[in-house]
């Protein structure tokens, strides 16, 4: 317990650093600034999904849906409902903008969390593939609902959102997300998430309420996805329901898998690398000296993602930084001394 406060200090340092960076953001090329903000948003998304998929072992494909809820709720509030707040706070200023923006983000996050709770409670009886399908369906339902809601622009998208998202807010929230997930896991309470992932029956036998842990993971994860959605809406200033489709969920899942399920820092790194890689591919697609085939592949992100995923599953199925063996899988059984008594059932999804 020597470094008891290292997490809190890290959080404060990260907030100060993002404030400093934000102060100089005026001198950064606006394209680069946008990319840096996307990196931060993807960190929030990937780290919060890692709580559900990585630490608690519940395979969710609904993160884009939660993000869409947060994006639309916060955008609607800050655009349509902010006039009263601005009047009460004496006009548009730095402070009143911060109040409106934070309020909208928070309510967007809460709306997403409520959706997470609503999806979580009935569907957490399901496991593995079934849960993935239900969450996938949920994400699609959200998208279609938004598409048919004229108040937020329907399929045309929602435009005219104020550009409130700054480097400071993005990275403060990213740091908070990392802090919350890390300190949650690093506690006797938080170890409960891992026991749910490792062995539900054993977890219940030592008194762990597995349902409650799963719902908590879903609600918290959805909350941060909603906040990330709010950040996204207030930096692009235009959102469109088709932007929150299945592919986006997959993209976030790939960040988690690449970083290593259940390794927060690995996932942070994967979010950074993948976001930058995707942006860089835009340039690659434009390099005329490259063979046509390479440029065409670079222009199509899905191909790159599939290749990354296939390579990863073949070479390092636990992810780049997932030092731990995959849940109850082959890695554990190899090391275990052979049992004479009862042969184990073959591990599900053993890769090799």
């Amino acid at each position: 317990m020597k470094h008891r406060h290292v997490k809190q200090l890290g959080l404060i340092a990260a907030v100060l650093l993002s404030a400093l960076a934000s102060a100089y953001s005026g001198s950064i090329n606006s394209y680069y600034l946008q990319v840096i903000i996307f990196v931060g948003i993807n960190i929030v998304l990937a780290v919060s999904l890692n709580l559900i998929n990585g630490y608690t072992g519940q395979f969710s494909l609904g993160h884009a849906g939660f993000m869409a809820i947060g994006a639309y709720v916060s955008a609607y509030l800050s655009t349509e409902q902010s006039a009263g707040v601005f009047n009460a706070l004496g006009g548009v200023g730095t402070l009143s903008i911060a109040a409106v923006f934070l309020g909208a983000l928070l309510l967007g996050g809460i709306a997403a969390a409520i959706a997470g709770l609503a999806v979580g409670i009935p569907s957490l009886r399901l496991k593995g593939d079934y849960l993935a399908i239900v969450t996938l369906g949920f994400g699609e339902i959200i998208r279609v609902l938004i598409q048919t809601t004229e108040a937020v622009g329907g399929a045309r998208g929602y435009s005219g959102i104020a550009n409130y998202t700054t480097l400071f807010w993005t990275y403060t929230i990213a740091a908070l997300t990392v802090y919350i997930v890390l300190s949650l896991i690093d506690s006797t309470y938080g170890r409960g998430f891992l026991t749910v992932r490792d062995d539900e029956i054993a977890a219940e036998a030592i008194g762990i309420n597995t349902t409650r842990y799963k719902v908590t993971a879903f609600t918290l994860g959805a909350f941060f996805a909603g906040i990330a959605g709010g950040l996204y809406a207030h930096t692009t200033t235009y959102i469109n329901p088709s932007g929150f489709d299945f592919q986006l969920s997959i993209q976030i899942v790939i960040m988690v898998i690449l970083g290593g399920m259940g390794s927060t820092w690995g996932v942070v790194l994967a979010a950074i690398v993948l976001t930058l890689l995707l942006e860089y591919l835009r340039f690659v697609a434009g390099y005329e000296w490259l063979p046509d085939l390479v440029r065409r592949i670079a222009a199509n992100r899905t191909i790159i993602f599939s290749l990354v995923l296939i390579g990863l599953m073949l070479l390092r199925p636990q992810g780049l930084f997932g030092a731990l063996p995959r849940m109850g899988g082959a890695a554990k059984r190899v090391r275990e001394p052979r049992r004479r008594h009862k042969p184990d059932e073959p591990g599900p999804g053993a890769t090799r």
Partner: protein
Amino acid sequence: MSIPLLDLNKCTIRFGGLTAVSAVDMQIGSQDLLGLIGPNGAGKTTVFNIITGVYQPTSGTITFNNKPTAGLKPNVIAKRGIARTFQNIRLFPTLSVYDNVRAAFNLRLRHRLAHALSRFPSFYREENQIKARVMEMLEIFGLAHEEHLLCGSLPYGDQRRLEIVRALATQPKLLLLDEPAAGMNPREKEELMELIRFVKEKYQIAVLLVEHDMKVVMGICQRVVVLDYGIKIAEGTPEEVQKNAKVIEAYLGEEPSAA
């Protein structure tokens, strides 16, 4: 016997047309070491699963510590004071030896989600208390030097021991051991018997032991209940049970010369 700690009264469970356990009565006193034996498929593990809430009995009642437990979920029953180990060891494979035991303190936590995030001094006090108690238990059971290892890398006997330690960390009044001697060599079995006696003495708890190995059962149990095809066919001291004609028949068949 005074009021038993655990009282199974005419417990029956049916899976479709199969009656796995039929009208079983069983009492365990607060300091008993009871053995539950029977041939393969006799329903021993099913009885375990009824007691721990994994299955709900089709009929009959279960009373633990004067309170009915039928219908409660396994985690609630664990909190009431029944801990168990599994026939095929179920440790948490991605957690260290230390964390496997630490996780079992979860159910007595006072500080939960909000404290884990805010990290007030009371949070650290509780975490330090848990740490001290986990280390104490690991010392007692000779696993302290392995605290940082993943549990999967422990030798088989140590994994069995760790599972028992984890169960004890929930501070049970009754410990259920499901075939703890399975896959052990004679020396390991001796150590296991020693361990079970020690645990019972040290923590003053009741133990219910399901076991195939007669040497282990007869060596440490005060009383033995025998199941066959889901029906209780005998109960008594190990000596009595060994002489019981029904038991001999269940294990060895009807030929009198076989005994």
